[in-house]
């Protein structure tokens, strides 16, 4: 049961990330020098979303 819960949690996180990236315009594969992973909260230039 624990494995199933972990699997569902993992899937939910992936879907949530995809939904967020689509909504906020994030790119997982990013060419910006300041945002290698495309996560706005990782690179310094982010000033917030909607």
């Amino acid at each position, binding site marked *: 049961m624990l494995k*199933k819960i972990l*699997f*569902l949690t*993992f*899937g*939910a996180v*992936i*879907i949530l*990330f*995809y*939904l967020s*990236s*689509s*909504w*906020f*315009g*994030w*790119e*997982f*594969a*990013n*060419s*910006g*020098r*300041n*945002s290698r992973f*495309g*996560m*706005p909260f990782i*690179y*310094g*230039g*982010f*000033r*917030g*979303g*909607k």
Partner: protein
Amino acid sequence: MSVLQANCPSCAAPLRFKSGSTVVVVCPFCRSAVARNDRSVEDLGKVAEVAESESPLQIGLRGEFRSNNFELTGRAQLKHESGGFWDEWYATFSNGSTGWLAEAQGKFYLTFNKPLAENVSIPDFQTLVVGQTISDISAETSFVAAEKGTATYIAADGEIPYRLTPNEQNDYADLSGANRAFATIDYGTNPPLVYVGEEVSLEDLGLANRESAERKTRKVSAETLSCPNCGGALDLIAPDKTMRVTCPFCNSLLDANQGNLKFLQTLKASPADDFVLPIGAEGAFAGGEKNKIIGAMTRSVTIEGTKYFWHEYLLYNPRIGFRWLVQSDNHWNFVEPVNVADVAEGDKTATFNGKTFKIFQDAPARVEYVKGEFYWRVEVGETVRAVDYVNAPLMLSRESTAKEINWSLGTYLTVGEVETAFGVSNLPKPYNIAPNQPFTGGFYIKAGLAMLGLLCLIAVLMIPLGGLSSTVLLQEIVLQPTANASIAQTIFSQPFELKANRNVKITASAPVNNSFAEVDVDLINEQNNEVESVDIPIEYYAGVEDGESWSEGGRTSDVYISSLPAGNYTLRVEGTKENPLTALPVTVKVEQNVARGVNFWLSFFLLSILPLWALIRKMTFESRRWSESMFGGAVDD
């Protein structure tokens, strides 16, 4: 049939024929079967006393079936040719009709005589084949011949509605129909008599809550039985049902006939006959009913010269009758009987309860060793044709001989479930894949597919929600000739506006030919001067080698970056080129909200890992399962 009261011709005791349909009364004093006719009574001979059993029924018991009251007024006990006994109770209904309530192995069948129309013919006993369909008896259902045999009337009590002659033998056939329908053909008369009815429960008969219907243990003096070979005391668990029993002290196989034991043979156990559950152990299975192990046997099939063994435990519960617990390769199955007519058997499949089962094995199954008690005359070497069909976690099995066909349904149990049921631990771990072992990773496949579906749905929904892409800058800049290639030129673009929450795509194009240009682009936020930098290399090489043209790279290159805070931006373009002496025009384009599949496919890949792994495991699992089958799973669905 005018004689309602008479004296027994044997002992002169007063007798009374309560029901108008009664033909024979068993004298309660001298056990004579007394038949009446128009003017007198006739002694048909002595009948034995009925063997006591754990039956909930008794003469005089009143019940109700479909709003008709009845009373049990007589009982006949018949002996199966394979050694077992069953009871037939004569039910006299308040509306004048009569019925037979047969009781065998914990089940009850209520049937009524059904005169057949003249144009209806039923197969005679010799030509009747077990498994044959007979559709003329009833308009409601077709019947399947489940068993044919010869019964001997060995005992009776009370009033009997036909001329019962002690020890008389009659051929009969039992038929099963859909929805618990049941019929019997009695070949003792010419033409044969047909009785049609159904399997009933005590609840159906209004007997479930009667004080007299409670199961009472009336064992056949179990404490007095002793082994005729070694004298060891035998305590039978189901003495009224037992036809064969083994002695735990000298390992003798004994024939049990109403408490009389007879030595048959000494059994030799091999290491394959070590049973992991003891005789007498009680286990609770689905429904919470406790079943006691009363017997255990080792059986085998021989396939391509190799003998495969498994163990079967006979379970007994007076309320529900007999069940089986099967242990094969340390996998377990709880097995229950199935109505013959409820199974539709095809060439390589069988259908039961809306499920289709694939054939797995078809081989003669042989009894190798027995221990404990059995309700039939089991013998070492007894062989039946056993056909198994699987639809995990279920297994549908047919065991048939020339005279009998039995279907059963096995449900796969984990070792943990068996340990819990019997309150034991450390049962041996299973090996190989059982024919009906369920694949446990199915959840990951189903849930994974559901999540992939959800991901696709979100992707589709985001197309209209996200809006269309837009070009916010399109400008050509020229990299002027320089003294050498290492000198960079810096050019600023026109200002443009970026909106928040939209990705940014920057494309650079230059007519390079067998050369490269390096374009470093800085996006400068005019409000706070924060900079986002990207490199855009452009290189294009082409030529002809060994008569074949080739090319690599391209004259256009692009990069993506995540959304930036909304505001006015300017591009600072710093360019270098391979050929410093010529000017190079570079077109720079900035777009926003450009659809790109990387996020989707990355998410898709991550979500696919576990379901894909589970799918591969399932294919391997099924491959291993069917590698054990005679049919290799090559059965079309």
